[in-house]
């Protein structure tokens, strides 16, 4: 079976910056508390009329341009998202059309904050199985549409943005650049992160999620490394879902990955759910923190609860 690889990344953030002090004007909180508990200094919030599709399009366009591929070379578009205002039409077909990708397979995928890693895995499988040549994978979220701005346990965390990757085949004989996915779910904990029917706002049992994330995920990360034949010490970058800096640091500590190799995009991006991993990757690439040709570990986790991890070769 031919291998697959990531060709390029792209990220997009809305213009509006919301600081912790801004939030302290709305709810009872403060900059020190937010920084120490979740590690966020500021986040981006989309304009009222800016949609998930708009952000997905912007990130997708950047990844496509960076890949060097023309739109017709893409024949599958997957958008990982859990936050469109309406369930129909899906985001993927609209984004594909706007980017000039003619009649590709197009679907949305909801694995919440784990969505990007799920989409990456299915894109890789599609390339390897021959059901697609090149795939545009996007994580895009407008989480602020689903917030109760009087709930200080959630409105300080979530934010908006999009990130994208282009996945394609590796040349014959070369090893695959996307390792086997290790994924799973814990439906018994489904009630820990929900959108309530009454006010349509995200509610989260932060302590329970923190406990789960700091105990259940590092074994998943280790298994993804093992299945890719990579030791955690060989990883040049670790990009976990940007849920909470304390969770990120706890997992990194358990894996023995030094801090300078760990994505900390949450500090200025907030928690953008399925967009956080590709956004963080794009930023690390811009900052020169990624070494092409070396292994990087991704792990997404969140509502469901669901999770997925894989090792990729940095493009």
């Amino acid at each position, binding site marked *: 079976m031919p291998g697959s690889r990531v060709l390029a990344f792209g990220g997009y953030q809305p213009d509006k910056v919301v600081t912790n002090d801004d939030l302290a004007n709305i709810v009872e909180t403060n900059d020190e508390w937010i920084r*120490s*508990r979740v590690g966020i200094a500021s986040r981006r919030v989309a304009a009222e009329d800016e949609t998930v599709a708009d952000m997905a399009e912007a990130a997708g366009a950047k990844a496509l341009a960076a890949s060097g591929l023309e739109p017709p070379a893409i024949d599958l578009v997957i958008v990982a998202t859990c936050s469109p205002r309406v369930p129909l039409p899906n985001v993927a077909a609209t984004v594909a059309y706007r980017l000039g990708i003619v009649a590709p397979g197009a679907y949305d995928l909801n694995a919440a904050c784990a969505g990007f890693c799920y989409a990456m895995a299915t894109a890789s499988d599609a390339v390897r199985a021959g059901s697609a040549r090149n795939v545009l994978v996007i994580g895009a979220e407008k989480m602020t549409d689903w917030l109760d701005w009087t709930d200080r346990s959630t409105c300080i965390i979530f934010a908006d943005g999009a990130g994208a990757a282009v996945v394609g085949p590796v040349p014959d004989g070369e090893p695959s650049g996307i390792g086997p996915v290790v994924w799973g779910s814990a439906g018994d904990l489904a009630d820990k992160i929900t959108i309530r029917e009454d006010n349509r706002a995200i509610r989260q049992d932060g*302590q*329970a999620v*923190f*406990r789960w994330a*700091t*105990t259940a995920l590092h074994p998943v990360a280790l298994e993804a490394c093992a299945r890719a034949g990579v030791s955690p010490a060989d990883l040049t970058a670790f990009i976990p879902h940007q849920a909470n800096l*304390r969770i990120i640091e*706890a997992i990194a500590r358990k894996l023995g990955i030094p801090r300078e190799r760990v994505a900390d995009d949450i500090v200025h991006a907030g928690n953008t759910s399925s967009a956080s991993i590709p956004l963080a990757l794009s930023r690390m690439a811009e900052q020169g923190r990624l070494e092409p040709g070396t292994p990087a570990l991704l792990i997404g986790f969140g509502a469901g609860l669901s999770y997925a991890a894989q090792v990729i070769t940095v493009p």
Partner: protein
Amino acid sequence: MTDQEILAGLAEIIDEVAGVPADEVTPDKNFVDDLDIDSLSMVEIAVAAQDKFGVEIPDEQLKDLKTVQDVVNFVSKNS
């Protein structure tokens, strides 16, 4: 396991999780007021305590454990 051994083990955990030097972890210390340990660090301490002592400290119990001695007692009683 003696209370002294539990205390020593707990001090190691607290040093690792929260960076509090082991000699500051004495039985009468309150986690929040004296050691500046917040609720998330308490969860990490509970998880590490489970690994070390084989005693599960559920979230509902955790909020009642205010001092170092409270945790030592809980571990001692449930191990």
